[in-house]
């Protein structure tokens, strides 16, 4: 299995990469991390710049074409590779890579079907932030807009963690305003959305905001710190891997 660690996790949140790797290893997976990886191409492609996305996409395929599974602790990178990723010719290798990628929660829940996390204990009140991609594209949880029976893969997993308590914000499915380059090019709206998001969780009593995407959390953390709001951020892989705080 190939481990893809998004660039911002590599650079800013190595502990999330470590937790993802260790968690997969605990489940008996044979994981390797190709050392020449950089980025999946999403930032460029999401800006419409296909030509600029092509080298990153080609490199991604080169790094991951030989794995049975590719796992990454990021919903939006998974979505990019699976559903977009067409800046390069769609060769057999490209198609294989696109069909092999899994977001961390999907992989633990759907593929490995892990039933228990006896090592995990997290005695805190947490608010779950389902990122827009995991919610509405990867569909790892039901969305409030859709008339459908409720389900949540991340909650299924987190409920198996000892001591954890959940709080629900007023607008659980509202976007936090990260949005990739949106966070910079539409800074005023992005920051306002982030402020509203962290306030919403704090008002619900959350000590932690937990998510399957560090990018949203990086943005929310920046907002909370600027506001002086007492709330912490943690990736779901860290909790499942046994982090206590």
């Amino acid at each position, binding site marked *: 299995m190939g481990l893809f660690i998004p660039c911002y996790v590599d650079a800013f949140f190595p502990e999330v990469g470590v937790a993802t790797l260790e968690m997969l290893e605990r489940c008996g997976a044979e994981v390797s991390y190709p050392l020449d990886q950089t980025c999946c191409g999403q*930032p460029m492609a999401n800006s419409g710049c296909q030509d600029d996305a092509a080298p990153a996409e080609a490199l991604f395929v080169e790094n991951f074409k030989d794995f049975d599974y590719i796992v990454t602790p990021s919903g939006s990178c998974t979505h990019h590779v699976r559903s977009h990723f067409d800046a390069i010719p769609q060769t057999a290798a490209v198609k294989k890579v696109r069909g092999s990628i899994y977001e961390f929660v999907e992989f633990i829940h759907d593929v490995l079907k892990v039933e228990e996390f006896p090592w995990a204990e997290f005695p805190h009140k947490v608010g779950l932030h389902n990122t827009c991609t995991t919610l509405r594209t990867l569909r790892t949880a039901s969305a409030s807009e859709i*008339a459908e029976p409720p389900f949540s893969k991340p909650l299924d997993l987190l409920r198996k963690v000892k001591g954890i308590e959940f709080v629900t914000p007023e607008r659980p499915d509202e976007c936090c305003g990260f949005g990739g380059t949106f966070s910079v090019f539409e800074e005023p709206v992005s920051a306002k959305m982030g402020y509203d998001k962290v306030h919403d969780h704090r008002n619900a009593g959350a000590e932690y905001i937990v998510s399957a995407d560090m990018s949203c959390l990086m943005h929310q953390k920046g907002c909370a710190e600027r506001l002086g709001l007492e709330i912490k951020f943690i990736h779901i892989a860290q909790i499942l891997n046994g982090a206590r705080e």
Partner: protein
Amino acid sequence: MKRLDHAGAASRFIADEKHLAFHDAKLWDLRKKRDREAHGIPEWEELRQLASDIKEHTLAHLADYLEEFERNATRNGVKVHWARDAAEHNQIVFDILAAKAAKTLVKSKSMLTEECDMRPFLERRGIEVIETDLGERIQQLDDEPPSHIVVPAVHKLRGDVSAVFARKLGTEAGNEDVTYLAESQRRTTRPYFLRADAGMTGANFAIAETGGFVVCTNEGNADLSASLPKLHIASIGIEKLIPRVEHLGVFIRLLSRSALGSPITQYTSHFRTPRAGTEMHIVLVDNGRSERLGMAEFWSSLKCIRCGACMNTCPVYRRSGGLSYGATYSGPIGIIIDPTFNIRKYSNLPFASTLNGSCTSVCPVKINIHDQIYKWRRVIAERNELPLVKKATMKAAGKLFGNPKLYRAALAATGTAIEDLPRFAIYNWFNPWGRQREVPQPPTKTFRQWYIENRTRR
């Protein structure tokens, strides 16, 4: 043509905390009511699919249905006109009015006439035009376009309305009582209904098999506009067609639930033939719709029934206000329609989105709005309409990410890990990230370094 600066306009909107808070809360409330109604109908998702299918079928056979509609409407005694664009539409309307020497026109809300910029056209030719929808009237009196396609003055507080009315209608200054204000508008609009020479409506649906059309409103003003004067003109975009009466039920069940979270509008009025002694005209307007229909990736935006649900749910729209889009259509649906009118002017709009997809999930006719926003970004980049800074940033990022050595060198270059990362992630005093957010603290080593030390050297 200058690019519209959505971020700048949004920034000014956000600076006004009172207005922002009301705007966000009011529209979120509509979204919540919409959820309640949608979840209260077991077959909701099935209805959405059905509505989408009917619209796609109609659009695939649009020419046939339009001709069928024209035949039936003509048989009903209605005069049907065809307008290729906004200019033709406005001229046709003026000619109809001029032929009757009509000087005063009362009209109900119509986004199409906004799109055609009809009011100033007629006013310059001596026609007095009175908007009779409350929100639209407020906007007319304040000399502002509607900021929302269903609730045109939703960005205004009651104090703003009070001030506009005091200035333009002579109401008591400082009186913000809602009943008083609404009653004042009613009292000042009624005389126009009674003396208007002509009335104008839009249409929510035009039915090919009958040649009739349906107008859905909550205030009854469309009915007065259509029923009191001796001349009724309906301006209808060609995408409003549905094949048969039986299809209407699908859309009526979806429309107001999606728009306002109410089961149905107060008035669902069916028009088919002119009343005795009066005339009824229909102007079928293209204004870029045929061209849009030919766009492989964007044609399905024509399914839109203008409910505004995508705007109500849009976290960006709620925090930037409809006027920040600088176009007739704002919010998510505006983002995918506006560039078809002017790609340069509206080239920033597809970037005024986080691609969160909530718009797509609430859309009653299942338009893949956020996918189209994504696709517009490509078109804009391909046509070289990206602002320079964005283009340069992406070029640099693409180069860096395409080359592992360069990427790692950039990470390591200054020892601070951050500074040479591509612009979307870096932080420095010139970068907007840090204006209202703290920068993530770079760790002592990257994940890659940790991996090499802990997994490859065992």
